[in-house]
């Protein structure tokens, strides 16, 4: 039984969704996003996954970024926020996610 392989596939398919959901809640920066995801082993990911993913979402126009100067010993942080395009994308993803959950529930017979 190789559950790890399946788990990594789930992670790959849902990480983008989770990051956009996080950013929608509140503008956030890379380290904070990684730390939040870290609380949930199923979607926890390292820097070498999250940063390139953020960069791709940025290039595709789903999120925007802005540097905020650090005060009182805090380093400057690059904050990401959801764009209108991102909102739309996220809404469409949410619909599909609901479809998936409904399908699974129905097949399970619940």
């Amino acid at each position: 039984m190789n559950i790890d392989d399946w788990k990594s596939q789930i992670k790959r398919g849902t990480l983008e969704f989770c990051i956009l959901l996080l950013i929608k809640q509140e503008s956030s920066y890379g380290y904070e996003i990684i730390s939040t995801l870290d609380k949930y082993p199923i979607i926890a990911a390292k820097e070498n996954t999250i940063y390139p993913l953020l960069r791709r979402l940025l290039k595709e126009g789903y999120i925007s970024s802005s540097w905020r100067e650090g005060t009182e010993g805090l380093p400057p942080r690059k904050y990401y926020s959801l764009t209108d395009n991102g909102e739309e994308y996220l809404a469409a993803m949410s619909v599909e996610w609901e479809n998936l959950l409904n399908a699974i529930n129905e097949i399970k017979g619940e």
Partner: protein
Amino acid sequence: MIMEKELNDYLENMEKYLKPIPVSERIDIINEIKSEMQELQRNGVTTEAIIDRLGNPKDLAKAYLGDLISKESGFSWNRFLMACAFYSLVGFSGMVVIPCLGVIAPTFIVCGIAAPILGAVKLIDYIFTLNIPYVENIGIFLGGIVEFNPIVEFIISLIVGILIYWAGRGAWKLLVLYCKKISKTASKLSI
């Protein structure tokens, strides 16, 4: 905040592997990683633990590049045909537009400036009777049918000069506009 040598080395190393990415983006990537390093330092994470967490600088850099490669190698017929159409059009129009405007713009500008200056030289020669050599070759010649007074010639050369100068400037602006438009379209098509 003090950056330890190991962390600076890490960033420099990473930057080396990010070479295929444009400078401005590269700096942004490095700054973002640097920001996380400082964040971790502030939380009391040791230098070794930070480096351990981020992994090999080469691998981290490659993760960014991976995205770049997979995006650019994506081949589509649509994009290919668009590129063909674009370059055919640019090639043909460029063959005519660029050399024409490129020749017209500077010569018209130079002539536009030269005409009134020469007219002025003749006018000064006429007023002060200086007998400057070769001045008899300057003037408006209509095959000997009409001969103008140097004052009239100067006024005509001034008007014509201004008109030619503006035409030259116009041609130059068109040329710049044309080139800008092409490079903008090319980058939009990302070809």
